[in-house]
């Protein structure tokens, strides 16, 4: 009796993944709890253990993309049986393999509700080779309707069309590679982000003079602190303080519910050579600047080395993106679903401003805050920016609430 190996679901938003490695060959013995394969999803590589013992037969090759629940192999009583095994047709998924790293998912997010897909949407999606359950539904109760499938088909179709035109124009042809792994995840997440929320971006200018001074004294005392504190750390800490005060921002729309998170977990966008990843600093409101700086350095290093665990990049309730580090002044960042707000910070530059009727030069920074207008009203977002600006312009007041 074969034990089928299926792609596990590793996080709330995981829809599919790329199978990146098998640790065993066909016919090889596998013990229960032994690492059996690796998948890349949500910008992270995860090792998956066998949830049973047996002799392996692989049905899927490395670098293939699979939906959650897809059967990729089987475990058999004997090596001979394994080698003779053929891939079951449309056999139902009988088991999901144990997961090394479990995403931190709140109880509210884990509530498993039947996904509503209209009969027409299901038929059209199936015809187009799309799993409609993976689409974001815009109908009542999140139902996936025909229009949602049509959009997905359109997204699929758009890129190849452009490529086709180039082929005709240039002759030798463009480089083609599969949309897989991290890029595939980013592509899907970015489109979903725009489709499933009503994003609005607002801007505010902040006088960073006192933060510059604070940061300078931190750097001057780097040896004593044991870590180099950055502007990002300071802004992140300020965000955490305001988020703890304003639970309306630290919240998400999930299905038909509004979920207000009980932790302030701030994701920090980290650019990689081939993409972007957002490791999360958990409970940032309860951490010191030093702790935040240490954690940031560790997470960024592991991200660039591809060594982030599933738990390092999930569970964020808010995201901070410092595009000033590559010279941006203001941008319109995209939300990281299901989060409802993201703050982008630009470069700090000396600008001419007016203070008390006098033209003066001050180190100014632009804040770009994108929020989900479904959940957060403009006034609430404005209050968040005001409080954040007040903290950044008088960072000493942060001390007042510090533990």
């Amino acid at each position, binding site marked *: 009796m074969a034990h089928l190996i299926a792609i596990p679901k590793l996080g709330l938003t995981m829809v599919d993944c790329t199978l990146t490695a098998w640790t065993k060959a066909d016919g090889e013995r596998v013990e229960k709890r032994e690492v059996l394969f690796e998948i890349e999803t949500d910008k992270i590589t995860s090792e998956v253990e066998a949830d049973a013992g047996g002799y392996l037969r692989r049905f899927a090759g490395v670098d293939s993309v699979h939906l959650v629940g897809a059967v990729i192999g089987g475990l058999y009583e004997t090596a001979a049986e394994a080698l003779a095994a053929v891939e079951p047709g449309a056999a139902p998924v009988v088991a999901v393999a144990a997961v090394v790293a479990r995403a931190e998912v709140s109880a509210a997010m884990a509530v498993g509700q039947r996904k509503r897909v*209209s*009969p*027409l*949407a*299901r*038929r059209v999606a199936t015809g187009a080779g799309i799993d409609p359950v993976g689409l974001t539904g815009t*109908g*009542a109760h999140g139902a996936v*309707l*025909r229009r949602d499938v049509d959009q997905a088909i359109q997204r699929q179709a758009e890129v190849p069309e452009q490529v086709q035109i180039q082929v005709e124009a240039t002759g030798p042809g463009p480089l083609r590679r599969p949309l897989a792994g991290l890029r595939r995840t980013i592509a899907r997440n970015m489109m979903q982000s725009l489709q499933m929320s009503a994003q609005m971006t607002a801007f505010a200018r902040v006088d960073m003079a006192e933060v510059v001074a604070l940061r300078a004294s931190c750097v001057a005392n780097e040896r004593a602190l044991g870590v180099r504190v950055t502007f990002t750390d300071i802004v992140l800490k300020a965000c955490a303080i305001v988020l703890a005060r304003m639970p309306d921002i630290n919240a998400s729309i999930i299905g038909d519910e509004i979920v207000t998170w009980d932790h302030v977990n701030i994701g920090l966008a980290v650019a990689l050579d081939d993409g972007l990843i957002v490791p999360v600093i958990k409970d940032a409101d309860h951490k010191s600047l030093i702790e935040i700086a240490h954690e940031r350095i560790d997470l960024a290093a592991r991200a660039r080395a591809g060594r982030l665990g599933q738990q390092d990049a999930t569970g964020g309730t808010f995201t901070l993106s410092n595009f000033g580090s590559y010279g941006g002044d203001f941008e319109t960042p995209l939300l990281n679903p299901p989060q409802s707000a993201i703050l982008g910070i630009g470069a700090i530059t000396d600008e001419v401003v007016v203070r008390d009727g006098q033209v003066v030069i001050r180190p100014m920074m632009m804040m770009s805050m994108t929020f989900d207008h479904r959940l957060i009203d403009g006034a609430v977002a404005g209050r968040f920016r005001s409080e954040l600006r007040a903290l950044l312009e008088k960072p000493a007041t942060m001390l007042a609430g510090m533990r």
Partner: protein
Amino acid sequence: MPTKTYCWAIIDAMREEMARDDRVFLIGEDVAVAGGAFGASRGLLDAFGPMRVRDTPISEEIIVGLGVGAAMAGRRPIVEIMFIDFLGLCLDQIANQAAKTHYIYDGMFKMPLVIRMSSAVEMGIGPHHSQAWEAIVAHIPGLKVVMPSTPRDAKGLLKSAIRDDNPVIFIEHIAMHRIKEEIEDDEDFLIPIGKADVKRQGTDVTVVASGLMVARALAAAERLAVDGISVEVIDPRTISPLDFDTITASVSKTSRCLVVSSSHKNFGFGSEVAAEIGERAFFDLDQPVRRLSPPFTPAPFGRQFDQFLNPDTDAIVAAVRDLMA
């Protein structure tokens, strides 16, 4: 083309068919001397005489029974039951006799009987004169049930009913008696029984509306068009046998359907349409089929109640918007 009211379209249909075929006759309460309780047989007594146009006593069972027996004896009767609310008084003759005679006797008898019944839905005349009972008769095999919503349809369908060899319940809405329409001046102008009419073409939502609701559905479609919502309005015209081919084709195109009826949802017209669409076009549906009907109550006296209970244009607009959300 001459313009006729719904009422005169009915009179014309009977006059033309009585002139065309000696076997056709008309009986009913007040149909002869009075010219019909609602004027829908004016002039027929003078044209055809008392042998073929007769006032009956207020005896609904024998009014229909006379039609059944005369039809078995080779005539083509038109009998009038003043209000469809009086159906209970003659239901045995309709359901057990007229509907089954051809079947029971293995086709030895035809039943070319037309039973005209007026519906006064929403006319505020109270619980025994305001009912939409088309679903009750539509439940009976062997009967055809037609319910025109325009003068042209009324004339063409009544003429077809008179020429049909089967019992046909012809439901006239007296609320529509005065609406006017151009009608072909042709004695052989017929509207086929069992064929729905696409009253307005559209691509986003199919609204199946019957009787009084057709005009409201068209008005709603006009309003929704302003917002870019394209509504297809289908008037089945014949309640039984219902033209599911036309309805299904439309729903397969639009993938959304609303059924608007003056009859109750419960075991009713809208339920029948919704269920059949579910069986025939499930995989074309992008939204559940919606029904708009009066609540499951009798109709009290007074138009304010009628207006409160019955679907209006606003309700249709809102339901369509809901389907498009």
